[in-house]
């Protein structure tokens, strides 16, 4: 039967494990939150995410970053449902197309951002988890609560939709003069 000393040791081990988890992933979770949370609420998202991790430490898997980002995603979704606001990222991306007198590079980036903003949230999330958070497809699948196979299909479709949006905006390719990018190579 476990005594007080066992409970104490378990508690201290949990604190050590959480501290290691926090130190390893705080910056990644904070970056994820800052990209997506409304205004100055990213700190709240980070705090809530790690608080959930602390309370449910026994459920945190060894590959913990995707799990943490999934929690952060849920926290942000809860925030946005509560405030009846659209996602901060989508707003930010849509605004990127409307800047006054942009340079050519800014205009190009603005169109990419706007195209990204027009994607459904899950498509946009599939792409940005890979491109911005640097996750592997299997990790991104965990964040979205999908199987790796389902995620690959979603990512493929998301990229296709993004290309379509860019085509509409005349930005289908960053190097249109490069034939290998424009044309299919015959097998």
């Amino acid at each position, binding site marked *: 039967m476990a005594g*007080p*000393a066992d*409970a*104490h*040791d378990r*508690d*201290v081990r*949990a*604190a*050590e494990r*959480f*501290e290691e988890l*926090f*130190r390893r992933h*705080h*910056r990644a979770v*904070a*970056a994820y939150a*800052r*990209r997506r949370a409304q205004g100055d609420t990213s*700190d*709240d998202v*980070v*705090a*809530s995410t*790690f*608080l*959930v991790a*602390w*309370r*449910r430490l*026994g459920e945190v898997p060894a590959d913990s970053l995707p799990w943490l980002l999934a929690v952060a995603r849920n*926290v942000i979704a*809860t925030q946005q449902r509560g405030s009846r606001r659209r996602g901060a*990222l989508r707003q*930010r991306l849509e605004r*990127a197309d409307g800047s006054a007198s942009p340079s050519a590079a800014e205009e190009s*980036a603005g169109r*990419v*951002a706007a195209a*990204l903003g027009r994607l459904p949230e899950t498509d946009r999330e599939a*792409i*940005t988890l*890979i*491109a*911005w958070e640097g996750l592997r497809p299997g990790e991104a699948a965990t964040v979205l609560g999908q199987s790796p196979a389902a995620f690959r299909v979603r990512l493929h479709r998301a*990229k296709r939709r*993004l*290309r379509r949006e*860019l085509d509409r905006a005349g930005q289908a*390719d*960053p*190097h249109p003069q490069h034939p*290998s*990018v424009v*044309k*299919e*190579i*015959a*097998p």
Partner: protein
Amino acid sequence: MTTTRRTRDADLMELVRGVDPLEGDVHPATDAAAEALLREILAVPRPEHSPGTRRSRTVAVRLAAVGGAAAVSLVAITAITGEDRGGVVPASAAVVRHALAAAAQPPGTILHVDMRGTQNNGDGTSITWRDESWQGSGAADDRRQVETNPDGTTAESANVGDTEQVYDPATNTIYASTTTANSAKPEAQRNYRISPGPTANTYVVRLMVFRVAPGHGYRIVPGRGQKYRLVVTASQAKALKDRSAMIKWVRAPRSAATLNGYRPAVVPARAAAASPDCSDFGSQDYGDQILTMLRSCGAHLVGNATIAGRDTLELRSQDGHITYYVDTSSYAPVQLDTTGTDGGTSLRFTKYELLPGSDANEALLSLTAQHPSATVDRNQADYVAAEKRLFPNG
């Protein structure tokens, strides 16, 4: 076709990376703010887990505003599903977690400690000393310390990378060793002779130590070199004979009874190999002592106490040999008392603060930065002579 698809995918993802809102941005939260958040979360009781019922609950937790970007107001988390049987971690455990976080040194910081020590030798005599130190936490773990001896004299030394330095104010010279200090700590020893002691139920353990390089540590060699005599109890002698205990060199205040700042101690063999020995708490330094006590010695909250006018929380190890007082607000170390068979030691911390790793603070780790006009002498013989002169007790 695959090549084309990959190329197009890569370019597409590169376009997306180009509109990353944080591209080239540095996260504004400072390490200190993150540390503050970590401490606040660790203070929140965790539900005890069991495979029993699951239920949803709403948790509202106030994470106190600590400062800067980490200032977090009321955070409400809805619909957190947890496994909760209603158990609450005792307040004592939360205090231990606080104390652990307050005593730990995050990477990239400098720990500044000003400490007064008193050692009661168990025979009515005692020694006192003061030790002010600056400890880095980077790859090199540089350290500078100023030791004030009982007679009021001071000795300043530093560890820079793998080398040691001492500063002699009389000649305004920094003497730097030219060999590494890695061997400065004598390790566990299994070669010794045990004979009946001076009084009933005591035994004498005779150790042989051979000083490999003066000023650079000791190697244990049976049958030759310098003799060291240690009086132990009958039970300790029996444990040494049946190999359930062993001799381990542990850090001790410099005195005539220490070798290069270490003294031999009888410790359980398994504890010495795998886990800290809380019953004979003579481990490396006070930082390790505190962390070991909190992590592995069954530390628990006893109550409140006033130490040198400061309100403190009193924590005690399970065996009662270690008492640790922390500030009631910051949980910073205030005093660490250890008792053993041969007296006890009390370390009072008048300062225990973390400094950010700025250039100005990094200079606190360096003797050359603190004494820019000093001559640096890299002759090994001069270093050894200076060490003997400045640290006559070892």
